[in-house]
């Protein structure tokens, strides 16, 4: 693939994003902008090669909703585990849950497995190829399974994919 065949719109957007990243990393200094420009162009070209633009776009609204959900629940998860750690009796009742993911393989599952660890009371322990996920739960009395389903719905909406298969 040569530079000429690259989709121009995606190239411009990514190039600008990398230029912004350079500006941030250089602490706003502009005395080496030439090197930064070369870096941004090279990074944009490499990113198009490694991660070609796809037709399916992530909607801004879905992204904002996902981020809000994620931030709120990671805050809840952190507070919950902090309280457990600091109170006299932690009151742990660990268990292993096994759930079947309804998300397709690839990026959606990857995001789910990584996000689970920051959600209240859950920790991803093993994802098998057939989409079954073992989840370690801090306290079996918490409604972890329902919350994971909610997370799954958010991720499905984010990627614009249907949650087919098992549920």
């Amino acid at each position, binding site marked *: 693939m040569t530079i000429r065949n690259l989709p121009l719109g995606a190239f411009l957007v990514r190039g600008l994003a990398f230029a912004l990243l350079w500006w941030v990393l250089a602490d706003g200094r502009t005395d080496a902008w030439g090197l930064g420009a070369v870096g941004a162009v090279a990074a944009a070209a490499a990113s198009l090669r490694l991660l070609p633009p796809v037709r399916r776009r992530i909607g801004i609204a879905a992204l904002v909703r996902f981020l809000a959900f994620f931030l709120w629940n990671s805050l809840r998860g*952190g507070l919950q585990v902090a309280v457990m*750690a600091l109170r006299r009796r932690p009151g742990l009742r660990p268990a292993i849950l096994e759930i079947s993911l309804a998300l397709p393989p690839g990026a959606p599952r990857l995001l789910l497995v990584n996000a689970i660890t920051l959600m209240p009371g859950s920790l991803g322990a093993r994802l098998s190829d057939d989409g079954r996920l073992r989840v370690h739960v801090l306290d079996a009395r918490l409604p972890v399974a329902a919350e994971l389903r909610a997370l799954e719905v958010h991720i499905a909406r984010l990627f614009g994919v249907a949650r087919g298969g098992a549920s």
Partner: protein
Amino acid sequence: MIEFASAALLFIGAFFYFAGTVGLLRFPDIYTRLHALAKADNLGLGFVLAGLALRAETLAAALKLLLIWPLALAASAAVTYAIAQRAETLGIAPWRGEEEP
């Protein structure tokens, strides 16, 4: 005002780091300790970075500080999963608790 907000954020961050470390020391097995580390320390880092970003001298420096958070978050989540999966593979059984229902 900004000084105060920054100090408050740094304090909250320190609290989460403290709680995460207490959890690491007090919790009974590898899985529960991973819960404490991953969740509490990520919040600690987020609040500390937000507090420091308020004190940054330039916008670029503030953004740079805030950029650390998602990167550390991704690394921490991936590493936590890797450790948990390895523990599972080695057959380390989770601590089941002593408390009565």
